[in-house]
């Protein structure tokens, strides 16, 4: 019934996955939100999670860096591997995990501090910079990678909340990059942005895709088609189909995927 990702991936030659879900179930109290998900997520490529609202894609995303820990009724079973370590059972420290698996949220959420301090916060708490000059270097390169440097280089001490929505979101991406993560999770990063800002974020994701494993939840199928190499379709807590983005959108194997893509469900 459900395509196992290992099968669909047999034809694509891949190194071992950066992150992998093995039989992941998530419960909110009695509500079975995520059902038995197996998924491989590879470094240096963008994976889109699509599906109708409430299908569990954001919940799954938040399991990948244990952001669901703070919800008391949330329970996760199965394995989520970062390289070879199970992030839920092994001795991995949550704080460290979140430095390795960064996150960008739906609504831009810069700290109400200066642009500089927004970027510098992560490196500071993780002790990544020994000197002020190192920190300056991290701030500069992070902003450059996020394509924001030219716009803000003269006003690093102004508040991050004073930027426009699109700039704020790129600031949040720069902030996530600054701690040098291996994986970046993005939870509908463009849903609060106008089309121009969205285009900038998308091209930014494209540029970053070679350096980080990027997993992005999106409601826009066009966006998924534009930016991701792999796409997973979620429906009612199940992962219905996973495969190359082009295949999912041109010749889906499952009826439900086709119905969603053509707008009949969702």
């Amino acid at each position, binding site marked *: 019934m459900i395509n196992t990702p290992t099968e669909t991936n047999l034809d694509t030659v891949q190194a071992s996955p950066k992150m992998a879900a093995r039989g992941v179930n998530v419960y909110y109290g009695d509500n079975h939100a995520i059902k038995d998900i197996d998924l491989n997520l590879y470094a240096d490529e963008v994976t889109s999670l699509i599906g109708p609202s409430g299908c569990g894609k954001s919940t799954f995303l938040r399991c990948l*860096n244990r*952001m669901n820990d*703070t919800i*008391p009724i949330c329970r996760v079973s199965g394995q989520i591997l970062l390289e070879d370590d199970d992030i839920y059972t092994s001795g991995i420290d949550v*704080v*460290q*995990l*979140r*430095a390795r698996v*960064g*996150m*960008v*949220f739906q*609504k831009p*959420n*810069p*700290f*109400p501090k200066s642009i500089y301090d927004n970027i510098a*916060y*992560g490196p500071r*708490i*993780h002790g990544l910079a020994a000197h002020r000059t190192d920190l300056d270097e991290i701030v500069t390169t992070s902003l450059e990678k996020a394509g924001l440097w030219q716009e803000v280089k003269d006003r690093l001490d102004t508040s991050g*909340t004073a930027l426009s929505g699109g700039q704020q979101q790129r600031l*949040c991406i720069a*902030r*996530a990059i600054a*701690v040098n993560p291996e994986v970046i999770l993005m939870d509908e990063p463009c849903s609060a942005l106008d089309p121009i800002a969205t285009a900038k974020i998308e091209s930014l994701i494209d540029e970053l895709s070679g350096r980080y494993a990027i997993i992005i939840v999106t409601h826009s199928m066009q966006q998924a088609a534009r930016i991701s190499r792999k796409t997973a379709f979620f429906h009612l807590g199940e992962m219905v189909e996973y495969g190359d983005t082009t295949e999912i959108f041109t010749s889906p194997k499952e009826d439900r995927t086709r119905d969603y893509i053509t707008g009949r469900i969702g």
Partner: protein
Amino acid sequence: MTDRSKITTVNSSVPTDWKSDAMQARIGRRYRRERIFRSLGLAAVVISVLFLVFLLGNIVKNGAYGFMQTSVSLDVTFNADLLGDPSVLSAEEFTEKVRKTNMLRLIQASMRDLFPDVKGRRDTRALLRLVSTGARAQLRDMILANPSLVGNTERVELLTSDDIDQVIKGNIDITLAEANRKVKDKELSWLKTLQDDDRISLDFHSQFLTGGDSREPELAGVWGAIVGSALTLMVTLVTAFPIGLFAAVYLEEFAPKNRFTDIIEININNLAAVPSIVFGLLGLAVFLSVMGMPRSAPIVGGLTLALLTLPTVIIASRASIAAVPPSIRDAARGLGASPMQVVFHHVIPLAMPGIMTGTIIGMARALGESAPLLMIGMVAFIVDIPGSINDAATVLPVQIYLWADSPERAFVEKTSAAIMVLLFFLIAMNGVAIWLRQKFEQKW
């Protein structure tokens, strides 16, 4: 009837006749109700403003004279025979001699020059009573501060007794029959002589703001109570703020949500509504009886008021902590901040304006409390300015209570004046709270 049925018919195929009489009347009624509602609200505001204006007007009217005091100018001869000669005696000997001298004799001498006809002990005593009993200390301090006065005659301003002061201020009705008033005809005639000689003046009285309490209204001041209040509030702030803040942070950010924390939450809200005198009983039982702390001391008062303020601080702090957007917590957590880092780097700084505002409002309430302090003995008559949190002290509201309870007519205005001082501090504290909120308020 037909009109009405037409209006209320739902889904009728006939379009609603918005111009019909019934509809117009309906709209008219609606506007009328609106007007009545608005005028009721306005009336409520006007009534409360009137009451406030009346209250403040009354206090200011009564209290304005409390800051002023009548003085009499007398030509005092600083008799070297009586006081000792500072050029002969050593400084200590001179001080000792001056301290032992009865200054009343200087006043008596100068009064005798003014009223040579007054004879007899009874009349002389009555004459001397025109001058405040504090005048002696006034003279003594004058001499000790300036020993070169000895041997000279100087015109000095001495406080009059509170009765004379009240006559000058018009608070004693001198048209009453002599038997029915405190100031007798003889005294009034002396006063008249002094006034004609231009020796009576009504001036600003700084001792009211710088002195301690006294049985004599003309000598009583609020400084002791102000210092007592300041020391007490300091203890309250130092205890209630950190405890309240950490309790709020724990309950809001770390405590598991279960029946136990629910009970704690409900009880904190209940504590905020407990009558303050109950906290006084608690303070009496715990701090005085069990822990054996000093009675009447600001440390006990401060701790008792801290108990009273804690619920306010906790509730205000929790509200402002809860108002910090979850997205900020997510952002920090997503970067790998530990729960404590999230709280200390982001939540508390962002909640601080609200926490400080709540704390200051709580402090303002503590500043105005008297009931719990009565229970722990801060209602004593204390003349000295407290020097530390362990000294006996009183606070402004209790001082007001004590003066309001005093029989002397002159304490009426002192009471109102002290209320004005208290209100000044309350308004100042609320002003600071508003200023803090405006300055640090975050826009999201």
